[in-house]
């Protein structure tokens, strides 16, 4: 069995479970972003008009797409993966087969990114219907960005998962990282609105780079620093993967 086949076996297990509850899962994944788009995009958009030179709905839609990719991958990489690792001993069962922890962690990350892709595809369609996409001809490029963002946030989530003593631990991660990224990385307003120091901090956070890549693909804003943004997301994904494998090994292979 080669490495891709081993990773895919893990991915496939999660996919088969998801398929059983796909409708409920999809509704859950895109209900929240839909409400944001409707409530803030329409409601707030009426007062704001334009932001960063484009209609607020378009500005927000690209941001919400990225934050949804983050949230979906994060939840999957924290709660669901932790349940499989620590509660159901699914990983332990896999480790009695030719699968190793590097395969299992990679399969989990790949699956979480796939979930981001699935839910963000639905959100993208809704965003188009609500007028949040100005440039439909490049909008499909949003999907690879979503997938890469999914890999990035899933890998970080698996690091936290491998460290967590229990579910309560995840609150710290949300309060210290996920929520600040949601609020300060350009989802709702341009980074330029932040004080300089805060902008510097935002520049090292992955969501900033996901949004910076995504927004020009869906709007008329110019696309810049593509290589940098891709590199930051890929670096977080790779570093997260390596660290998650190391931490999970320390935890499980005693």
């Amino acid at each position, binding site marked *: *069995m080669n490495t891709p*086949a*081993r990773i895919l*076996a893990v991915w*496939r*297990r999660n996919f*088969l*479970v998801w398929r*059983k509850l796909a409708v409920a899962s999809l509704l859950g994944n895109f209900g929240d972003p839909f409400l944001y788009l409707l409530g803030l995009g329409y409601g707030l958009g009426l007062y704001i008009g334009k932001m960063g030179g484009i209609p607020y709905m378009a500005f927000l839609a690209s941001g919400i797409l990225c934050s949804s990719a983050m949230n979906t991958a994060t939840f999957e990489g924290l709660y669901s993966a932790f349940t499989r690792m620590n509660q*159901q*001993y*699914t990983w*332990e*069962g*896999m*480790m*009695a*087969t*030719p*699968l*190793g922890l590097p395969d299992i962690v990679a399969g989990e990350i790949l699956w979480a990114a796939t979930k981001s892709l699935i839910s963000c595809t639905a959100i993208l369609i809704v965003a188009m219907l609500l007028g949040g996409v100005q440039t439909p001809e490049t909008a499909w490029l949003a999907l690879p960005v979503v997938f890469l963002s999914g890999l990035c946030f899933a890998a970080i989530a698996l690091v936290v998962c491998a460290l967590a003593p229990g579910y309560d631990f995840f609150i710290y991660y949300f309060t210290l990282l996920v929520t600040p990224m949601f609020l300060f990385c350009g989802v709702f307003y341009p980074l330029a609105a932040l004080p300089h120091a805060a902008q510097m901090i935002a520049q090292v956070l992955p969501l900033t780079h996901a949004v910076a890549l995504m927004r020009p693909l869906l709007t008329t804003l110019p696309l810049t620093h593509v290589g940098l943004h891709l590199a930051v997301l890929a670096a977080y994904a790779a570093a997260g993967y390596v660290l998650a494998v190391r931490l999970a090994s320390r935890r*499980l*292979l*005693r």
Partner: protein
Amino acid sequence: MSDAVVSARGVQKRFGEREVVCGVDFDIRPGICFGILGPNGAGKTTLIRMLLGMSPVSGGVYTLFGRPAGDREIRARVGVVPQMDNLDPDFSVRENLVVYARYFGIAPREAAPRAEELLAFAELSQRGDSPVSSLSGGMKRRLMIARSLINDPDLVVLDEPTTGLDPQARHLIWQRLRDLKRRGKTLVLTTHYMEEAEQLCDELMVLEHGRILARGSPRELMRAHVEPEVVELRGGLSDAGVEELCRNLELRREHVADTWFCYAEDARPLVSRCAGVPGLIFVHRPTNLEDVFLRLTGRELRD
């Protein structure tokens, strides 16, 4: 031994300062059922986890089919039934087998008929579509055993396969394990049920504090470590009373809680004396593996 399925030479496991497996040597020949006995904390599970690569070996040479223990590819030839069920609760009974097969690279087309055979083997054919959560403890164990066979392994490792099961469930599992042996599989099992070891194992190894105390077939162990017969005495005998009862007889005595165990080559003289003592409860029986185990590992309670 080059044809050994498992070979251990000076295998050690340390957790920090604490040494839980202290340099053990043993070989497991193909086709036998090899039992690892020992009280809780003796190092049985650690030996198994190291063999499967779930715990790094701290020292020594530990091989499985001639490859270092934990080698990923070699696990394709091994089936594992861990102490705790780790069935996939998100899948039905049948799906558990087919999904698990995929971890070995076995495609569903090939896995499906094999899963049906294994469900029949585990007497779970009627429950193929049931969720795992609806199974009884005995059924879950049988499914675990069926799952461990999905890759048609040469070696099946079972960590306390019948702990917590009722007698009917236990006998059914024993019968299945004997079937496996007949099919030429090598079995390694840990247990602290002496009856289980006696019923199933061709060779045994008794562990305590990470060291091997004794090894051999159940019969050899009994011959080497205990007399053939024992009389258990109960019922308010004073030490002096027991002394009086056993006077001039060739006996080895042990006192545990309210019971005296009197071991002898021939216990008949003691039995006839006991018959004359009013109110004395006594049991005369052949010795078994439990007597060996208690003799080797002591009778104090362990937690």
